[in-house]
């Protein structure tokens, strides 16, 4: 709930800044109109960059995978002893 308040406040602040720029016309009019699209594009670029960085340093733990495989074999044996049918269909 707190996060959404933060994001909404940021959006409102950016909108107010943009409307102020539109009203005062410090920058030429048609360049001010480009700014929201610029924000959207930079947000998309940020998301893509985060996905790329996350893929690049994706944590893998081979030792844990070996332990998990061992656990699976153990559990299968235990269930077979108890008489559970484990054949996949």
């Amino acid at each position, binding site marked *: 709930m707190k996060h959404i308040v933060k994001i909404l406040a940021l959006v409102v602040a950016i909108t107010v800044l943009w409307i102020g720029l539109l009203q005062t016309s410090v920058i030429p009019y048609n360049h001010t109109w480009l700014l929201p699209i610029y924000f959207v594009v930079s947000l998309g670029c940020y998301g*893509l960059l985060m996905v790329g960085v996350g893929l690049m340093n994706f944590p*893998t733990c081979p030792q844990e995978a070996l332990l998990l495989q061992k656990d699976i074999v153990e559990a299968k044996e235990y269930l077979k002893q108890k008489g559970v049918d484990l054949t996949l269909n």
Partner: protein
Amino acid sequence: MELADRAVGFLLSVTSLSIFTYYTFWVIILPFVDDDHFVHKYFLPQEYAILIPVSAGVTLLCFLSIFVGVVMLKSKRKKA
């Protein structure tokens, strides 16, 4: 497999950074450069700075809706 993932991640990062740099240059810096400067040869007219992102967004939304629709149809067929 891990190397391929790493390569894809690197490619994504490079793509996003280059798009960001190019677009920043296009939208923020270019209006302050003189109209007869040679840099203007490497950029499309200013209208395309709106047209391309909007069309890309609409295309993305279309593909997303088609994907969601296909998944819903598939899940319905499985239930029946």
